[in-house]
C-alpha cells in the first residue's frame, strides 16, 4: 500500500508522517507538493500537521483553494482513504470534507501534551484493528483544536457512529470531547491528536501505529 503525504509550504509534520509510515509502519510513502493537480498512484493520502499557508487567517482557509485539495476531493469522492492530522483536520473541515470547525482552544493557549483517547468506534478503516473503548495514548500540539459544530451535526455524528476518538480528559474544550471524526462515507478521517508522533516506544507511545496499521489492513481487504 502506497501513502502520499501532502506538503503545503507551511506543513511541518510532513517529514514526521513520512517517517512514521516508511520506517515504523514499513509502507512506501511519497510527498505530494501542494501545487500538484493529481495525487499520482497513491492508495491513501495524509494531510499532515503544520501551518499550511501560515494560517494567519483561519487555519486551512487558504489551503482549501490549493490545487492539491481539488485532487484530494476527487480522491475522497472515489472512496480513497484520506487522513487529516491536526492542521490536516482543520483543512478537511474548511474544505467541507468533514463537518464542523476547529476553533481556538478554550484556554486560548497552544497546548502540547500526551493525551488519552477513547476509541469510540472500530467501524472505520482507521480503527478497524482497535477495539471499541480501547484507550490510545498520543500527543496533541495545537492552538486551534476545539471541535465545534451545531447540535444537529453533533447528534448526527453520534447517531451515525462517526465520532472516532474522544478525549478522556478534554484539553481544549471540544464539544462532546470530540477528538476525531469521519465523513459519512467513512473513508475520510480528521483528528487533532498526532498518531504519527506515537509510532515507536522511544517517542513515548506506539499507539498511533494502530491507526496506520488499520488503514493498511482496511486497504488490503478492499
Amino acid at each position, binding site marked *: 500500500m502506497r501513502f502520499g503525504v501532502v506538503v503545503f509550504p507551511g506543513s511541518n509534520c510532513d517529514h514526521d508522517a513520512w517517517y512514521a509510515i516508511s520506517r515504523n509502519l514499513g509502507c512506501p510513502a511519497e510527498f505530494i507538493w501542494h501545487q500538484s493537480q493529481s495525487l499520482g498512484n497513491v492508495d491513501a493520502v495524509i494531510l499532515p500537521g503544520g501551518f499550511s499557508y*501560515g494560517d494567519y487567517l483561519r487555519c486551512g482557509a487558504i489551503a482549501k483553494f490549493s490545487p492539491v485539495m481539488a485532487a484530494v476531493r476527487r480522491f475522497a469522492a472515489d472512496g480513497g482513504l484520506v487522513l487529516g492530522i491536526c492542521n490536516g483536520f482543520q483543512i478537511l473541515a474548511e474544505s467541507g470534507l468533514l463537518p464542523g470547525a476547529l476553533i481556538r482552544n478554550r484556554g486560548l493557549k497552544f497546548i502540547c501534551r500526551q493525551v488519552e483517547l477513547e476509541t469510540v468506534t472500530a467501524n472505520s478503516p482507521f480503527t478497524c484493528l482497535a477495539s471499541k473503548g480501547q484507550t490510545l495514548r498520543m500527543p496533541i500540539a495545537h492552538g486551534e483544536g476545539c471541535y465545534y459544530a451545531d447540535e444537529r451535526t453533533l447528534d448526527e455524528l453520534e447517531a451515525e457512529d462517526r465520532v472516532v476518538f474522544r478525549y478522556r480528559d478534554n484539553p481544549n474544550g471540544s464539544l462532546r470531547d470530540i477528538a476525531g471524526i469521519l465523513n459519512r462515507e467513512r473513508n475520510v478521517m480528521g483528528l487533532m491528536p498526532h498518531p504519527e508522533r506515537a509510532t515507536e516506544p522511544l517517542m513515548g507511545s506506539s499507539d498511533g501505529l494502530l491507526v496506520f496499521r488499520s488503514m493498511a489492513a482496511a486497504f488490503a481487504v478492499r
Partner: protein
Amino acid sequence: MSTLTPELISAHQLTEQEYQRIVSILGREPNYTELGIFSVMWSEHCSYKSSRVHLKKLPTQGSHVIQGPGENAGVIDVGGGWAVAFKIESHNHPSFIEPFQGAATGVGGILRDIFTMGARPIAVLDSLRFGPLDDPRTGARNRRILAGVVSGIAHYGNCFGVPTVGGECVFETGYSGNPLVNVLALGVARKDRIFYARAAGVGNPVIYVGAKTGRDGIHGASMASAEFTGDARQKRPNVQVGDPFLEKLLLEACLEAMETGAIVAIQDMGAAGLTCSTCEMGSRGGAGIEIDLQYVPQREAGMTPYEIMLSESQERMLLVAEKGREEEVFRVFRKWGLDAVTIGCVTADGMLRVKNHGRVVAEIPNRALADEAPVYERPYTRPLRKYPMDAPPFRSADLEADWKALLASGDVCSKRWIWEQYDYMVRTNTVAGPGGDAAVLRIKETDISLAVALDGNGRYCALAPRQGARLAVAECCRNLSTVGALPVAATNCLNFGNPERPEIMGQLVEAIEGMAEACRFFETPITGGNVSLYNETLGEAIDPTPVVGVVGLLKTGPPLTADFKRPGRAVILLGGLGDCDEIQFGSTQYAKVVLGRIWGLPPALDMDYEKRVQAAMREIAAAGLAESAHDVSDGGLAVALAESSFGPAGVGAVVELASGMREEFLLFHEGPSRILLSTEHPEAVEAIARRHGVEAPRIGVTVEGRIRLAARGRVLVESAIEPLRRLWETALERMLGV
C-alpha cells in the same frame, strides 16, 4: 563637504575618537549613510568592542569542534558523518519593549543563524529571566512580559516547526526593568555539507532572498547597545515583526538551494541587516562586495540608502552563488514563493561599495567594518557587590513549611504552564523533552542522540561572578551527565550591565575568566555565543548573568529521567551529602525564598571531584543501572527528592540521613557535585562510584505515594506526594492568576 554635526554623531552612539578613526580609515568625512553603517557595525552588539579582549580567554578548540566562534554558529562533529550547529543569542532589549515580537524575532534570528550553516534546526531552548510575578509594584508588568515572551516563542517556534525542548525560567528583582530572553538553537547537517559565510569568486553574483526590506528595526543593534532611560515604549518601532511562516519557507528554500551546489556563501540578515551580511561575508572571504540598492526588494516606496542598509526586517538572507548558475538558485526560491534577486557581485578590491541607481552612496573597506572596530580595554575594578557577606541570625520555625514554600516558589515550581505552550515534539526526535535535567534528541539516521541543557545563576554571580560562572558550567555539564551524556561543546550568552562602569566591567571579566577555567576543565570549548551588555534601566543593572548551553552526546535509547519508577529501590546520593557553611547558605533558594535575603558566597566547587561524579554517573547510566537520576541544585536535596517523586508512577522515598549537619543546611544547601538516583543494583552503583573515588551513600528506599526525610532518627519533612505535587505544579498558574 560633510554635513555631520557632533549631535548627529553622538546620536549614532559614536564617540569623538571613534569618529576620528572613521575619518582616518576613509581619508575623508563619511557621509550620512556611511555614518549609519559604521555606527551599527561598531556598536557593542555587532563588534563586541568591550568584551573582545576578554572573550579571547575562552577555550574554543577541541576534538569535536569543526567551527569555533566567528561564523554564524559553532559546529561540532558528532560522529557518523553528522555535524551539529548551535548557538545562543539574546533578545533582551526588544523583549522588554515588545515582549511578544521581541521574543518571536529572537527565535527567528537564531534559527537563521543555524540554517545558514546548512543545518536543519531540530531544537530550541530558552533561558528566561523576569522580575518577580508577585511584586506589588512591578508584578503586573512582569506577568505581562512573561506571558508575552512565552507566546512569542511559541508562536514562532511552533509555526516554523522546531521543537522547543527545554530551558530555564528564573525570577529576580533585578530583571524587572530588564528581562532576559536568551534563545539557543541547534541543527544537524551532514558533516561534509556545511556552509560558510565567506564571499569568494570575483564576479560571482550577490543574491538577496526572502522578505522585502521595510523601515522596521532600523538601529536595532544600536538600541541593544544602550541602556534604557525613562519610557522605553518610544523604542517600540525599533523592534521587528516576525513572520515564522516566511522563515519556514526560507529554511526549506535555502536548504534546497544549497543542494544545487551553486551556493558559495550564505549569511542571514540579522542585526544590522544588509550592512552586516555584506561586509562580514566580504571581510571573511577577503573580498569586496558591490551592490546596487535599486534591486533590493522594498516593502515601501521612498526608502533612503541609509534606511535600506540599516533595516532589520526579518526573514532575509544574502548569498553568493556561482556565476552562471543563478537560475538554479532562482528556481528553488520561486518554488517556495520567495523573492530572489541579484543585487550585486563580489569584487576584488575588499571594499563594500553601495550604489543607488548606479551612484555610489557608500564606499568602505569591509575589514574596517567587520574586523577593525575599536577594541576597548575598559577599566575594571572589583565587581559590584550589593549584598552583605555575613549571615543574619536565622532558625527555621517549621522545616516542612519551608520545604513547601520552596516547592511553590517561582524558580523551583513546575514550568509546565510555559512549556506546554511549546510544541516540544515536532520532528519526532524528542526523546526527553522539557521538565527534565537535560533535553535529549535523537539523530534519526544514526544511533546518536544529543543532550542539551542551559544554565545560569545570576544570584551566584552577583555574589561572586567568577565562582558563579564556574558553577553554571559545572551544573550544565552535570545536567548532561545525569541523563548519561558526555558534554562536548558549549555556547555562551553573557548578560551584563553597562561595561563603561568599572565595577560592572569587573563582573564581566571575572565571569568570563571563571567560565573559561571551567570550560577548559570540563573540556567543553565555547564554539560561539553572544554578549549582551547595557542591561540596565534607569541606572539599575541586572545581576551579572552568564548563561551557558552545553551539548553532549549519548547513544540513542530509552531516556534516563528524574522520576522514581518503582517502589523498593535503593536511593543513592551520588557525590555525597556535600557541605555548606553559613556564608555559602546565603546564596541558596532557601535564603532567597524563606528568609527573603541574600548574603555571602555561592557554594564551593571542587572541579576535580565534580568531574569524577559526572564520569561515574555516565558510567552508571551507560550500564543501565539507574532507574532514575536527578541533579541536586536549586532548593537542595529536599527539593530534588520531591521533584523525583512527581513522576507518573507516584513513587516517593523514605530517606534517613546520617549526618550532624545543621538541619536547614542538610535539606536545602545547594552544594554541587550531587546526583540523586534510584537503582535496583546498589552494589554495582557503589562499585562504580568507588572506582571513581566518589561518595555514594545509600540514603533511603523508594516507596509508594509519600516522601519522608529524616536525620539521625528525627523526621524533618514528610508528606503524601499528591498534595505536594499539586502545590508545585500549580504554583506558576497561581502567581500568574490564570
